[in-house]
């Protein structure tokens, strides 16, 4: 084991760690926000807008993330969109994640019994308040697990960002390997890192789930 390698490459790895977490958090949260907006527009928007959203979801879900990333980073400049690798990484994450999140939210909206919404309407509660106070808190129950799942998938997708020279962890590890001809230790350490992130995300998801399902348990 050449553990001193890690000390030598410490700063680079730390930078890679920071970039990975940045792309993952900002990209996923951006994807969640965009996905939620898409799901709302799909539910309440006019028909033409719904078709556009439907097409967007189909296209993005139907193509590999790496191709989307390449198109954005290498094809972007042809459309006047010049991005740094990190910007391209975050933006592609948002674009890639949003349709999946939109679908999760769509199913969440559908999971709330219509009767509860009607009861609120009968009392004169405005629609947006119904969403905020009745639909959203309850839809967290069925969507927390799929949301957590997709966050986990995105954690590991950050590795693909190395292909457009985003200085994230895999990218740093690759230069480490190329310069030192050591492969096993860096890759094992990298795997350990992803496993740690995934476990942390899963734990957080489980914690949220117990909180949002509390009202369902019988005393």
């Amino acid at each position, binding site marked *: 084991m050449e553990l001193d390698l890690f000390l030598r490459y410490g700063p680079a790895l730390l930078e890679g760690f920071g970039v990975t977490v940045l792309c993952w958090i900002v990209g996923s949260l951006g994807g969640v926000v965009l996905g939620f907006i898409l799901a709302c527009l799909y539910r309440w928007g006019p028909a033409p807008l719904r078709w556009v959203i439907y097409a967007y979801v189909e296209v993005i879900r139907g193509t590999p993330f790496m191709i989307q990333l390449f198109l954005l980073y290498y094809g972007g400049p042809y459309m006047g969109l010049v991005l740094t690798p990190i910007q391209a990484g975050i933006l592609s994450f948002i674009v890639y994640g949003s349709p999946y999140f939109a679908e999760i939210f769509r199913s969440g909206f559908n999971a709330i019994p219509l009767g509860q919404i009607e009861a609120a309407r009968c009392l004169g509660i405005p*629609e947006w308040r119904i969403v905020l106070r009745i639909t959203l808190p309850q839809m967290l129950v069925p969507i927390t697990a799929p949301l957590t799942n997709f966050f986990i998938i995105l954690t590991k997708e950050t590795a693909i960002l190395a292909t457009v020279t985003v200085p994230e962890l895999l990218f740093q590890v690759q230069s480490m390997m190329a310069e030192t001809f050591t492969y096993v230790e860096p890759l094992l350490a990298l795997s350990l890192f992803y496993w740690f992130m995934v476990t942390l995300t899963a734990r957080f998801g489980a914690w949220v789930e117990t909180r949002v399902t509390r*009202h369902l348990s019988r*005393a």
Partner: protein
Amino acid sequence: MSEPILTVRGLSKRFGDFEALRHIDLDVNQNEVLCLIGPSGSGKSTLLRCLNFLEAYDDGEVRLEGELIGWREGGASPRRALASGALRKQRQGIGMVFQQFNLWPHMTALGNVTEALMQVKGLSRKQAEEKAQAALEKVGLSDKAGNHPANLSGGQQQRVAIARAVAMEPRLMLFDEPTSALDPELVGEVLAAMKQMAAEGMTMVVVTHEMGFAAHVADRVAFLDGGRLVGVTPPSEIFGKEPEDPRIQRFLQTYRERNVV
């Protein structure tokens, strides 16, 4: 009997090719309890849901104290629905209780009652909670205020739903088969709460299969069949003697047969 508070004229409702309601004329008087009875699929629930525009009726009028429900006044054709704010305002005057209770399971009993008081009436939390406590006490559930619906029996849940509607001080209460989803031993407590409301002078339209309630609490009973209003009579004329209309006879016959055995 006083002035009608609710007038229904020429009400029709179609679902595709199916005519759910055909030209219904009906008045409900102030402080009156009107029960809607009839075979399943006769349009009772649809009629009730048209009264607060949960179903947009196609033709005719529903007026609460003279105000057209759901549609804009004026003879525009096709009619235009009211702006959402105006419809919400109208609905505040009409309470509704559902067969499936439709409580919000993530809120406590108290939370279910305070929600609209705060969000719609604009009461402070403290005012809303006082009012909600009073409403829950009225249905005998003041000690269950902190329970979530999952920890209440069906009868208790339905009484919370009644408290939720009544706390808004509606001018008219609609009940859509409020006891049909309950175990038989829990029906009584819900009917008792409704009887008390009736005794206090609440105007109520009740879709029900509880013939006992219709016979003893209703001022009048309306019988629907195939989307048509067959008749509106005092309960004594339906339950006291043999009704003249063969459709009502048949309907009551099946009830008697079921209840005798």
